[in-house]
């Protein structure tokens, strides 16, 4: 079975090579049968990647330690749930997973468009096949998960090394697949962009053709990044959820570029502008997904991260692929500049186009600052000859002001008129939201927030302003429909939103982002997070207060030993848990059980301890505790109050749901009609097929 799976990988690589050639020669040599054959090879590649993946999953579930990968990332007592997720917990498996996901995307893409004669589809498939083949090559020749364990070592192995304890969390089962689906999915929009340039398409209709393939990875990326934060929060035990670590940053680079792209294509569709800019953003987004993959696999050896890096094993292969994408993409872009010329210009600074452009610039600035901060050790060596890193505070210092500007633009952009807004229109649209925003800010000032805390004041203004404008859009739409159709407000609201899912889905995403922004500030250590460490003996108490959450007290009751068993009844982990009675205003609220766990490998608890966080969620924030034992007579407890933290998760959920809601609107908007092309065209290929 295993050798069969490995063979499938080699066949997948061969199928990828064939697909590139067949689709390339088929499209540009106008040979329809070759195109069909190439499409079949792409679909076959998916089947082969699936066979290889099933082989690895089977080996993991069966604890087949004859494979090095299984011995290194799994063990017998691991539950099937985590055996399943150990597939992507190591280098080799994660690259195979990359290949599997991009192959699934490619399969669906080819299958859905198999009867469409437009050459943009096979050309896109060819570009995606290049990406698939690169990863298939890596998995076959550099990071083969089917590498056999040395027979001498195998004969001595009693059990595998097990899955890292930090990864034994439900969020870690969902987070990597979501993030990967967000990463690899950009291969298809990138393929569209390259196909547009290769075929010399002048219009913007391709954006509609690619819309589904743009939104799906954006939704996955948003969900993946958010789940990563949620996992860090409840698993790592430092009280926060985002530390601007290089590996974390790598996951969010493409999100910034992708979000900028999602906004600026609206201008291209509506005004036939920013065509070159959009191509740049598309190339950048895909480039950053590959760069992120490269970075998390130790591509830049100067980076110091708390996450393990592999030490540049594939640096040359990844570097070559990135240079290929960059040079190939930019060269093609330059060659096609004449057909990407915009038909319109900016008419006024006070216009939706400029608001969207500013939104793009700010998102790109955040992206650039995050990349620069992440690779600063590399830049500093090149520039000043010394390795300098910038810490978490750098990212907050640069990105928070930019984020606040973005918050305001989220309110302005969707409602300011296209082309030119008159002063009267600006007053009509923005006067009330500005007054309400100022009033809310004044109320917060009156409540005791000092002027020095300008971030809070600006956030209150920006969030109120943007939320009011966005909610007013719902109200206005429902009111018009209610008057037109003679129905009640709520039915009118429901039908308006349902009939314009693309538009209102975007507003829902904005509402989610605003809510998450409030949660960011409330729960951040530079915001309103409270923390206190204390060594506690039985009966000791510790209190912590927050203006938003009130005063909480914990009393250390004692230490308990807990045994966690797997589905076969075997002991999987042993935990020492500090029982803390949580009270608020003297009234018992809950017990918190922060713990240290040791996972059982080969019948014995491992030497490694992992922190198990305990938290009590409330509407206004979480009471969060971690414990550490350093002596026989007590426990060190660190207590955190994280105000408004739930808003971060709710904001993310709402943003993801908004994106999904957008996706369900399948109507195509043709604002900027395609220009007839004299070159090899659909009709030619269709003719060749006939």
């Amino acid at each position: 079975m295993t050798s069969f799976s490995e063979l499938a990988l080699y066949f997948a690589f061969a199928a990828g090579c064939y697909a590139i050639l067949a689709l390339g020669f088929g499209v540009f040599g106008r040979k329809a049968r070759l195109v069909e054959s190439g499409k079949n090879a792409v679909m076959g590649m998916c089947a082969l990647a699936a066979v290889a993946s099933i082989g690895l999953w089977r080996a993991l579930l069966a604890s087949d330690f004859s494979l090095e990968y299984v011995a290194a990332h799994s063990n017998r007592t691991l539950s099937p749930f985590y055996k399943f997720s150990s597939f992507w917990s190591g280098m080799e498996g994660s690259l195979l997973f990359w290949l599997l996901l991009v192959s699934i995307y490619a399969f669906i893409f080819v299958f859905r468009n198999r009867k469409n004669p437009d050459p943009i589809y096979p050309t896109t498939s060819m570009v995606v096949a290049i990406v698939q083949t690169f990863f298939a090559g890596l998995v076959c020749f550099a990071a083969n998960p089917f590498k056999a364990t040395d027979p001498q070592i195998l004969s001595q192995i009693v059990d595998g090394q097990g899955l890292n304890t930090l990864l034994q969390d439900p969020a870690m089962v969902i987070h990597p697949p979501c993030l990967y689906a967000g990463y690899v999915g950009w291969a298809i929009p990138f393929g569209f962009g390259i196909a547009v340039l290769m075929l010399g398409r002048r219009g913007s209709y391709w954006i509609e053709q690619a819309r589904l393939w743009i939104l799906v990875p954006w939704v996955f990326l948003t969900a993946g990044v958010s789940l990563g934060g949620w996992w860090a929060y409840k698993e790592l035990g430092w009280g926060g959820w985002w530390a601007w670590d290089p590996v974390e940053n790598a996951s969010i680079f493409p999100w910034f570029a992708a979000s900028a792209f999602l906004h600026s294509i609206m201008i291209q569709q509506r005004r036939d502008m920013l065509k070159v800019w959009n191509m740049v953003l598309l190339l950048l987004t895909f480039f950053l997904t590959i760069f992120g993959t490269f970075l998390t696999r130790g591509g830049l050896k100067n980076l110091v991260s708390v996450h393990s890096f592999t030490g540049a094993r594939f640096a040359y292969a990844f570097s070559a692929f990135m240079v290929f994408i960059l040079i190939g993409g930019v060269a093609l872009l330059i060659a096609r500049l004449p057909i990407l010329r915009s038909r319109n210009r900016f008419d006024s600074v006070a216009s939706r186009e400029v608001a969207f452009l500013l939104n793009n610039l700010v998102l790109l600035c955040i992206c650039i600052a995050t990349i620069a901060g992440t690779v600063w050790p590399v830049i500093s060596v090149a520039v000043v000859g010394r390795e300098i890193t910038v810490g978490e505070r750098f990212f907050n210092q640069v990105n928070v002001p930019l984020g606040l500007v973005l918050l305001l633009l989220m309110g302005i952009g969707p409602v300011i008129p296209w082309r030119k807004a008159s002063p009267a229109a600006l007053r009509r649209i923005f006067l009330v939201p500005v007054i309400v925003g100022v009033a809310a800010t004044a109320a917060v000032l009156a409540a005791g927030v000092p002027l020095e805390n300008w971030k809070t004041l600006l956030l209150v203004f920006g969030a109120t302003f943007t939320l009011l404008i966005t909610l007013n859009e719902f109200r206005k739409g429902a009111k018009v429909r209610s008057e037109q159709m003679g129905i009640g407000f709520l039915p009118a609201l429901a039908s308006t939103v349902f009939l314009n899912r693309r538009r209102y889905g975007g507003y829902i995403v904005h509402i989610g982002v605003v809510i998450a922004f409030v949660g960011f500030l409330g729960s951040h250590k530079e915001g309103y997070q409270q923390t206190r460490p204390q060594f506690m003996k039985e009966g000791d108490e510790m209190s912590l207060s927050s203006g938003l959450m009130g005063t909480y007290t914990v009393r250390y009751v004692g230490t308990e030993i807990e045994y966690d068993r797997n589905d076969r009844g075997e002991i999987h982990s042993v935990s020492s848990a500090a029982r803390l009675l949580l009270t608020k205003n003297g009234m018992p609220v809950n017990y918190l059980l922060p713990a240290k766990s040791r996972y059982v490998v080969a019948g014995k608890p491992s030497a490694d301890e992992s922190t198990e966080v305990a938290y009590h969620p409330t509407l206004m924030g979480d009471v969060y505790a971690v414990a550490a034992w350093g002596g026989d007579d007590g426990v060190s407890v660190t207590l955190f109050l994280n105000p408004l933290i739930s808003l971060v998760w709710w904001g993310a959920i709402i943003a993801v749901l908004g994106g999904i809601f957008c996706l369900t609107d399948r109507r195509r908007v043709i604002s900027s009609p395609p220009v007839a092309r004299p070159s090899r065209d659909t009709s030619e290929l269709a003719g060749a097929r006939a």
Partner: protein
Amino acid sequence: MFNLKIFAVIAIVVCGLGYLMYSGVNDNSQQYVTITELSHRAAAPADTIYKLKGKIVDGSVDYDAKIPCLRFDLNEGPGTPVVHVVSPELMPDNFKPGNECIVEGTFERATSSFAATKVMTKCPSKYEGQEEPKTASR
């Protein structure tokens, strides 16, 4: 004319980013040095924030959770210079001799010790280099 205004808007954004990044780097930069480099620096400025990476030396860990105070030595391998680290932090997960550790803080020449404000052990949540499964129980 309008293009000039647009250009001005773009210039303001770019200059804003430049300023934020310049001040951000100035205020928050930490020098990454190897333990060997640090141990050879005759006069390390007391206010310079350093970032060090090394391995926790076997037998050097002294931990008192009551204070809390974590003391240990870091080196880059057998026979390489050692730096003594003192931290007021709780012992992090995966903290054990031989494991890689990253510390941030200042170097106090008088006591020849590194006052760490942050101690981070490597979180193997990502993609380690594949080695022989040598720690597998046999």
